[in-house]
């Protein structure tokens, strides 16, 4: 109304002014609102990108490992001074192999045997795991004692970090873990080709180790594999059977209502509660061993079941009633209808749901912490009853280690875990694309 009083001032010739109903303001609000929406999506995607970038940029170097290839003299003098290995096989096991490796490297670098500080610095360049490596070589073939063999040994974790450029060399020498002398030697060895980066197979085969350069996820992978097998074998049949009953047979009564509400709630129970259940029931009450993959598998099965049941029921529901009617009309029993006709048609959906449930179970950590899988397991578990650890738990344990080299390992392990998850999810998507039917 206020516009009417101002318009006469402009004269009669002008076109009748459009009534200002705040369109400009409203369109601005519209644009702002739209912008908020885009900003929200951008924020989410930004963090997804940051997360992946942070993991990959820290972790891709873990797939390479610095190694030193040197001629090592298996000196009789050091390994078996008094030549008693024939009578005392223990001699070969307890021999001082790190000294053998140290002397070999010192010789290459031209460090005198009397230079104690020099030898110590040389020793700091080789991983402690050389002890096991050389011991295995010698016990496998004692005849190499006294000869000189070319052996590739792991570099020490700190040297590995330095060679990958992760250690800031401008920091004063006393404040960092590699000395200038070691860096000089490192460059010298690298130029001669003795020191170089190799693909890190140890990451996939080794077990837990307190030395980052020798630590790997191999044992954890086996543990995870056992658990996934147990989850698959138990939760798929049980889940499918439960959903078939609920979807196809169950009468509408209090009992089935109760089951239904139950399943929906179980899907939302925090995973750590399943860990408490496993600890109280499987370990304390039933007396299963702690840290066993079997217990982990059972706990994850209980956790995955609701997911599978919900997915299976959705898949069964998607099969049109005409299929059922046709089968029943031809004289099939209810059970035959379900198992011969409905279930095969629902199978792609069921498998998709199962794979996604398995992927969740693979990444789950919290319940496994409570049933004692936070254990230092260096040996591959032979059966599901042996102490084992799992990939996400291994990541958790490494994340708590302080050393720089472990950050790299942790990120590397996360990359491995994410690759598995991506493969599983892509598999599920392909399965759905390939077999899904639109009715």
């Amino acid at each position, binding site marked *: 109304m206020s516009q009417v009083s101002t318009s006469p001032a402009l004269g009669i010739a002008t076109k009748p002014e459009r009534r200002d109903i705040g369109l400009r303001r*409203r*369109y601005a*609000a*519209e644009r702002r*609102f*739209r912008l*908020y*929406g*885009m*900003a*929200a*999506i951008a924020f*989410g*995607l930004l*963090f*997804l990108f940051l*997360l992946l970038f*942070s*993991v990959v940029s820290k972790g891709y170097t873990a797939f390479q490992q610095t190694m030193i290839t040197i001629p090592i003299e298996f000196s009789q003098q050091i390994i078996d001074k008094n030549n008693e290995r024939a009578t005392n096989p223990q001699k070969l096991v307890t021999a001082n192999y790190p000294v053998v490796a140290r002397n070999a490297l010192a010789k290459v670098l031209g460090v005198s045997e009397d230079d104690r500080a020099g030898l110590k610095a040389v020793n700091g360049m080789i991983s402690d795991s050389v002890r096991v490596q050389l011991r295995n070589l010698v016990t496998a073939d004692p005849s190499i004692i006294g000869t000189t063999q070319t052996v590739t040994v792991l570099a020490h974790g700190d040297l590995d970090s330095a060679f990958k450029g992760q250690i800031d060399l401008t920091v004063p020498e006393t404040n960092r873990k590699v000395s200038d002398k070691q860096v000089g030697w490192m460059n010298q060895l690298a130029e001669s080709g003795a020191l170089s980066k190799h693909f890190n197979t140890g990451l996939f085969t080794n077990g837990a180790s307190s030395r980052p350069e020798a630590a790997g996820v191999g044992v954890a992978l086996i543990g995870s594999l056992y658990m996934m097998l147990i989850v698959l074998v138990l939760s798929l*049949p049980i*889940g499918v*059977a*439960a959903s*078939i*009953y*609920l979807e196809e*047979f169950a009468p509408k009564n209090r009992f089935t209502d109760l*089951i239904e*509400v*139950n399943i*929906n*709630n*179980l899907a*939302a*129970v*925090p995973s*750590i*509660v399943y860990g*408490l*259940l496993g*600890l*109280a*029931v499987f370990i304390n*009450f039933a007396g299963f061993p702690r840290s066993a993959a079997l217990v982990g598998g059972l706990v994850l099965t209980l956790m995955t*079941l609701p997911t599978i049941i919900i997915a299976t029921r959705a898949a069964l529901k998607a099969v049109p009633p005409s299929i059922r009617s046709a089968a029943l009309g031809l004289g099939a029993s209810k*059970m035959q209808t379900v198992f011969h006709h409905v279930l095969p048609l629902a199978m792609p959906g069921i498998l998709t749901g199962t794979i996604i449930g398995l*992927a969740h179970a693979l*990444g789950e*950590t*919290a319940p496994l912490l*409570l049933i004692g899988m936070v254990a230092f397991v260096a040996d591959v578990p032979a059966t599901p009853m042996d102490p084992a650890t799992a990939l996400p738990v291994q*990541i*958790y344990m490494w*994340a708590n280690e302080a050393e720089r080299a472990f950050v790299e390992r*942790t*990120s590397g392990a*996360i990359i491995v*875990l*994410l690759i598995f998850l991506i493969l599983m*999810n892509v598999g599920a998507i392909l399965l759905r694309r390939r077999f899904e039917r639109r009715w």
Partner: protein
Amino acid sequence: MSISLLLLIIAVIGVAGYLFGSWRANALAGGKLSSLHSRPGYYGSFVAIWSVLPALVVMLVWIIASPIYISSTVRGGFPEEVKATSQAEQNLAYNMIGAISRGLNTLSAEEREAMFADSATARTVLAAKGVPLAADPAPYMLTSADDLNRMTKASGTFLSILVIVAALAGAFVSYRAIAPKFRARNRVEGVMLVSLIAASSIAILTTVGIVASMATEAIHFFNMVPAWEFFFGTTWDPRFAAAGATASSGQFGLIPLLAGTLYIGFVAMLVAVPVGLFAAIYMSEYASRTVRSVAKPLLEVLAGIPTIVYGFFALITVGPFLRDISAQLNGLVTGNYASFIQAQSVLTAGIVMGIMLIPYVSSLSDDIITAVPRALRDGSLGLGATRSETIKRVIMPAALPGIVGALLMTASRAIGETMIVVLAAGVAARMQLNPFEPMTTVTVKIVNQLTGDLEFTSPQTLVAFALGITLFVITLCLNIYALYIVRKYREQYE
């Protein structure tokens, strides 16, 4: 005979039963299948079920019952002075007998003779065989161990015989029952139905297991620590479990943990709710088909990333970043480059958890917003409202109950989240309002109390179950309320 071999035998009998059953049905039909009530496979399955199922039941019962029987017989054979001691000491003695009996199996006949002649040598003899004993065994233990061995062996033999007989008898009886008029399919389907029902009862069993196991352990805890001290105590200081100490020496106040849980959850919701809601609105109302088909799955990737990865991200990237940036800010303002945000803090954990929750909020709300009927939108747009006005004034009010339900479900996830807070929130249980300082949560304390050596008699361990049941009840209430709201809301349009 080992259990696995026995299972194999049962399986073989079952398969044979199936083959013979179907073969006999075929023979009875004499080439005219329509004279049979069911298809031959059902007769086979009927025989197979009858040979496997009773045998398995017998086996299960025997495996559970026989150790109990043997243990009570062995304990009954204890000398009177041992029977007079406490239950715990008798258990100790029984465990030792168990160890000796394992050791006895590894000995040769002469070694046995020598050991029985002089029980004092038993410990060294058995240690040499890789069976360590805690103390020198009393003479009666050797005979008891011998009895135990004998009974275990006899029980094993009986079990094998009984199971095989049960399997064969079942196969025989059911094989004899096969006749053209026999309703094999109905019998088989009956068994199938029962197993389907059993499978769906596992969901109930799980819930019962969760509640029962946590409740019993929590009641043990409340016998040691009064419930009101737990629920209303403001100090969390559990101390360490000392061997033999039964009196509660620590303080178990839930309030600081609950405060931390809710505070971190609140910060997380502060991040997740606006971002998730706006993302959902944009995706359902504005985005073109292509944008939607790219952005939606990408956002959902956030939900598929394991929480341990978020925890690591918070620990290694977000925490240090916040710390450094706070130091820079502080330096710019006051000239003092000291960080006021700690690397492990409520803020760090809250932000990262919020990111994790974005896809939950967005996909749940997306479903709810799309479910609002087209007519409401069209009506509003037709009256000249802009899109944003339609969303704010029409769609959101209509979708509100559903969205509140979705937010409640998200909140319950935030409360139960473990790995992010374990790595990023810190372990200090205190009550304060500064989001830049570390606080701790219920889930962190459950993990802390249960990693390491456990003793199911100390309040330090049992408190985890009291915390667990609190967590369970809170999340359960949130979820039930959320489901109730969502269901009630859905009825409006359907």
